[in-house]
């Protein structure tokens, strides 16, 4: 599972981790029914506390994306809906725009121009 975190993201860490897992499921690397790597593996790789990852996983479970099963770990229940995927993509776009010194209003302007 590929996880990417933006170091300049002002959101709480568990929300960022939830976003990263949502993206990984959305891009098709994990299909419904597939088992996720254990929380402590993800936490170890990201260098963060396992409880933060667990909190992110619980959020995704409450969204209906993941399923917790005793003894079988965490598995994917369904793909995230279009809205959630677009929100993540927009967030990435805004972060990229910010690196070039563009604010949200200017991004909206660009979107209007090209659509």
């Amino acid at each position: 599972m590929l996880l990417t975190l933006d170091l300049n993201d002002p959101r709480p860490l568990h929300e960022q981790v939830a976003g990263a897992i949502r993206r990984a499921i959305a891009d098709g690397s994990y299909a419904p029914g597939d088992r996720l790597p254990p929380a402590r593996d993800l936490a170890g790789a990201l260098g963060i506390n396992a409880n933060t990852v667990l909190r992110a996983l619980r959020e995704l479970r409450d969204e209906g994306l993941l399923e917790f099963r005793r003894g079988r770990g965490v598995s994917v229940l369904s793909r995230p809906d279009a809205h959630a995927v677009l929100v993540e993509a927009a967030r990435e776009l805004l972060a990229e725009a910010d690196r070039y010194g563009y604010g949200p209003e200017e991004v909206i302007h660009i979107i209007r121009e090209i659509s």
Partner: protein
Amino acid sequence: MTSPTPVQSPPSSVSRGRAVAVAAVWGVLVTATLAAVPLALRDRLPDPMATHWSGGSVPDGNMSFTGNLVVAVALWAVIWATLLGLALHGAVLRGRLPRVHWWGFLFGGAGFALGMEGVTLNANLDAATWREALLPGWHVAAVIAVSAAAGALAGYLGRGEPDRAPVRPPADKPIMRLRPGQRAVWVSRVSNPWLIALTSASLLTAVIVTALAALGVLEATAAWIALAVSVPIGLLGIATSTVQTRVDAEGLRVGFGPWGRPARRTPAGAIESAWAELRSPTEVGGWGVRTMPGSGRITLMLRGGDHLVIRRAGGGEFAVSADDAERGAALLNAYIAETSGS
């Protein structure tokens, strides 16, 4: 034992056709011998005949003439049918190591079936009853040694061409874009439930043996022998039935066992390239850590399917079972490019 020379150089489909033909003819010959020789000697054999010896040369088990004949033919038939099935299935003859095993079992297995039937008939020949059929222990040892030698020779003659390392154009390798201010990691964990079951059984055996020895039920020597077998299998099993693979800015980390320790790290700078590949246990010769001497290619095989493969800068290849390996390889290539660029 005389054996027809197995085929030498096999470009896949031709060699498979020849292997199947040799196996078919050889199998019929062995089956005919196993059936014809006892039937020809029937008048000189007791019925029932001695078929089991425990340690000493005096028999302690018997079977009717027909029973013995059926068992001898059935034992060989199972080996033969399995080998034919594997050859027709195809993949087994493609790699050099499985090919050596296949030819080894075809002739070594036949040698063992023929030899065991031979020493059994020899012991029973002209005996008044099955109890007088004496079997010197060295006869059995000789059969095992000769059939192992025949198997080794057949495996050597049938080894064929060395495996060609697949040529991969650099454009083929996956790579992803790394953005500044971003931390990207990739993790995979793969377990093999069968290996875990085997491991658990071994460790359970070790615990039971220790308990029995402590209670004085089991002899100390027997307990040591049992522990010497079950403990290494259990420990190796724990280490290789679960593997945790991680790619981060530092490179590749492969953690063994359920706790991911011990772990082996390969820095990004020591890796030339990474890619994903489908591999199966028949190609690499089984499960666990698999290699061919001199090939420099190591596979940590937990299950057939997706594997993350790296080529080291100093030469040599390492592959490990991993889910979603394509993305892991893409990220690793990105870190390799970053390391070599700076």
